[in-house]
């Protein structure tokens, strides 16, 4: 890359396809308007001016799964809701990402032992990229999770084949501390 430097006119930048596409994907995540329980209140707080998710380019909450690429599972996933979530996830276009917000959607949380009606973790029905612990997590935790997801997206390889990605040990889902 160094041999191209200063060889062109101004306004011409050399970079990789991966970097450009990943930058575009990570900087404009469109979450789905979708909340299940009290964690959704924190998710709404993240959209307000106090926490302002727009600073990270993820403020366009879309009302349709077909227009969104980020699903924030905010709240308790009941069994009745599980099939609906799966349908919504399937309706989202690729590439799509999932943030599991709060203990309930991570692993059932307070309903783990005696919740006959709660799914013990949303990752039993859809793949999850980022798990955010908390009951409910602070808005800052969701922002941290969002930044972790953006970091993860920046690491992805777009034009190489998916098979190579798997054999090269794709980065494991990051847990927010």
């Amino acid at each position: 890359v160094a041999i191209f430097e200063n060889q062109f006119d101004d306004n011409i930048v050399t970079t990789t396809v991966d970097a450009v596409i990943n930058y575009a994907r990570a900087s404009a995540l469109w979450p789905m308007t979708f909340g299940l329980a009290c964690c959704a209140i924190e998710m709404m707080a993240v959209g307000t001016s106090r926490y302002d998710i727009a600073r990270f380019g993820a403020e366009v909450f879309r009302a349709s799964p077909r227009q969104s690429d980020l699903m924030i599972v905010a709240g308790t996933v009941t069994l009745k809701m599980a099939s609906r979530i799966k349908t919504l996830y399937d309706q989202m276009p690729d590439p799509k990402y999932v943030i599991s917000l709060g203990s309930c959607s991570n692993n059932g949380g307070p309903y783990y032992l005696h919740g006959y009606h709660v799914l013990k973790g949303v990752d039993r029905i859809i793949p999850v990229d980022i798990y955010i612990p908390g009951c409910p997590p602070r808005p800052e935790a969701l922002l941290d999770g969002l930044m972790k997801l953006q970091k993860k997206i920046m690491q992805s390889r777009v034009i190489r084949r998916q098979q190579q990605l798997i054999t090269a040990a794709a980065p494991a889902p990051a847990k927010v501390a």
Partner: protein
Amino acid sequence: MLTAKDIHEKLKAAFPDSVTEFVDEKLDPYSVVDAGAVAKVAAYLKSDPDLAFNYLVCISACDEKEFLTTVYHLESCDLHDGRIRHSFCMKTKVPREKPNCASVSHVWGAANWHEREAFDMMGIVYDGHPNLTRILCDDAWNGFPLRKDYVFPKEYGGIDLT
């Protein structure tokens, strides 16, 4: 201001066969009413001008091992100033094997969803209810989750729950 004892005496006089015992607990005294006759008793409680129970606060259901109990909390509210004139509690007991109780949903509209919830969670069947279907659980749900002998499902719609 009628006490629970007064109301029980009045009920006992009107329905000598259906209203059985009176339990004078300190916090929440109650009358036990025959499950099949609770609709008639409820209509009387609402229409009698002295009692005038126009407000059904809540219907609760309990699993007491041998039988299932429905608890009705009633209040008589002054419609002009909202003052509570008197309140009352009655219970019906139905056996586990045949949990049939009369519905009071045509007396108090609030009973409609409360009875559906009691049916959904406890499996008490309210005869005469206009739409006795599950209200919280899925329609295809097996069993009644809040019964003491309820066994948790191992699998739901292909999802492993263990």
